[in-house]
């Protein structure tokens, strides 16, 4: 059974429908990715799935219908989102941002300390900058902080909205390369990416979204060789 099943999901802004009856699944311990052009509705899908936007349809998480729960309850269940705009606490230090990431486990002091050390091991840059205000970090450091802050919550299911936003291709690969190691630690991932090739290379399963609809889906290594995708999203050649 899938860890996350978004079923028949629709999101509208007033009259404009940004997501139309979309269904997406994430298997336990796997990475699923949603790719698609600007304005396809990917961000709307993730924001609604975590409960920041109202939506019709159902969100089944770990066998339970969580559509009625509020954002905070979903987060407490280990369902987390790194949003497109990151929403860091700019005036606070890197370390405070990370500490607040574990707010939903605020009583587990020893474990939070261990998580913090793990994050610093994974991103030594954050360790160097731990007293610096989050708002003064470079773009790449911010992405690391956003990801690290989400990992402090020890998520079971992590949704990432364009972790490569505004980053050089090399750093993009570096960030995406950390994802499979998260899966080994029991995290399942729903990844939204502009960089279709890098996303499909990282993921197990892929969905292609266009103007609110899923137009294609399948195992990532099949999609990466799909002739239609190669011409539109993957830049022609392999």
């Amino acid at each position, binding site marked *: 059974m899938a860890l996350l099943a978004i079923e028949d999901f629709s999101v509208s802004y007033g009259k404009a429908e940004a997501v139309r009856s979309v269904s997406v699944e994430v298997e336990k311990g796997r990475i699923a990715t949603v790719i698609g052009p600007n304005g396809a509705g990917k961000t709307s899908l993730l924001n609604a799935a*975590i409960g*920041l936007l109202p939506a019709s349809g159902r969100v089944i998480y770990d066998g339970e219908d969580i559509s*009625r729960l509020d*954002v*905070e309850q979903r*987060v*407490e269940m280990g369902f*987390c*989102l790194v*949003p497109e*705009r*990151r*929403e*860091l*606490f*700019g*005036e*606070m230090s890197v370390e*405070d941002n990370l*500490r*607040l*990431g574990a*707010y*939903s486990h*605020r009583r587990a002091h020893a474990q939070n300390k261990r998580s913090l050390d793990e994050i610093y091991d994974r991103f030594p840059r954050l360790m160097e900058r731990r007293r610096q205000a989050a708002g003064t970090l470079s773009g790449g450091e*911010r992405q690391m902080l956003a990801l690290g*802050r989400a990992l402090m*919550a020890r998520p079971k299911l992590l949704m990432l909205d364009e972790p490569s936003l505004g980053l050089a291709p090399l750093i993009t690969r570096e960030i995406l390369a950390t994802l499979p190691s998260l899966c080994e630690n029991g995290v399942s991932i729903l990844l939204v990416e502009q960089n279709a090739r890098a996303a499909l290379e990282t993921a197990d399963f892929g969905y292609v979204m266009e103007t609110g609809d899923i137009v294609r889906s399948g195992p990532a290594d099949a999609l990466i060789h799909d002739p239609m995708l190669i011409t539109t999203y993957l830049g022609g050649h392999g």
Partner: protein
Amino acid sequence: MTADIAAILAVDGIATGAIYVLIALGFVLIFAVTRVIFVPFGDIAAFTALTVAALELKQVPGTVGLVAALAVLATLVEVVSLLRARSPGRIPKALVFYLVLPLAAAGAVWLTAGHALPMALRIVLSLVLILPVAPLLDRIVYRPIADASVLLLLTVSMALHFALVGLGLLFFGPEGVRTETLTDATFEFGSVFVPGQTVMIVGAALLFSALLYLFFEFTLTGKALHATAINRTGARLMGIRPERAGTIAYLLGSLLAGVSGILIAPVNTIFYDSGFLIGLKAFVGAIIGGLVSFPVTALGSVLVGLLESFASFQSSAYKEVIVFSILIPVLLWRSYTTVHSEEDTEE
């Protein structure tokens, strides 16, 4: 004016300013977390003073009825909104929070009011009783319009203040009160005699400012409040409930306002409507701090106190005029020096 008189006025001004500091810090705290300019903090201070006075006279204070009425109303609002959201599972917790706890506070005061109580106990009971007022008002009035503009929230705050003054008259009556002095000791600094009451006021302002600093600097709850103020969406995604952060902010602010009410009541006669002027002067202090900076707010409030003290020596009829006149240059200065930031800054 001789140096001696100046020193006396300065001591007096610092004490008055210290009262404003306590209330002004509450303004900044609430505004940061909820974007509400909680005008009724002055009323909270005045109601605390009236509560202590009633307990001194072995009467049941009007606050008991006020808290009970607000608790029932807030519970209704909360239960209806939970039913609407189809989460009846959260009703028991809501009942404890909005009904049982406030009624327990009201009940405790109601049962003990007829007895002669030691001063410390009277003060603690009054504070316990005043604490639920602002969070209950938050639930009833502000939460349904949490996403409204700052201006609308301010307008609602003004309306709420006038409603509270009306309720104050209803529950406390028109008489002014002055409570027993907290201490009769006097201290001598050089040639200036300083009443113990003044020392206590300044000490309390320092103590609570320090506690507030420690709370924000060293506790995760304090940081969660700060985070909510900086980025609501980010906070929610960490599992921090903005409503809960708001409640904590209201409780802390009420504690500060309550303490200031207790400290001012032995030196000033307090009526049901005295809160407005106190609150407004504290508000000038908060504006000097731009409603964001705690240290500048504290300095600003002391400045207001000093100005008031010297102004009342020069011409007591015009002291309010002089105090509020400084608001104009301060506002001009602030509007020229602060960079206007959008409510949600893009990365």
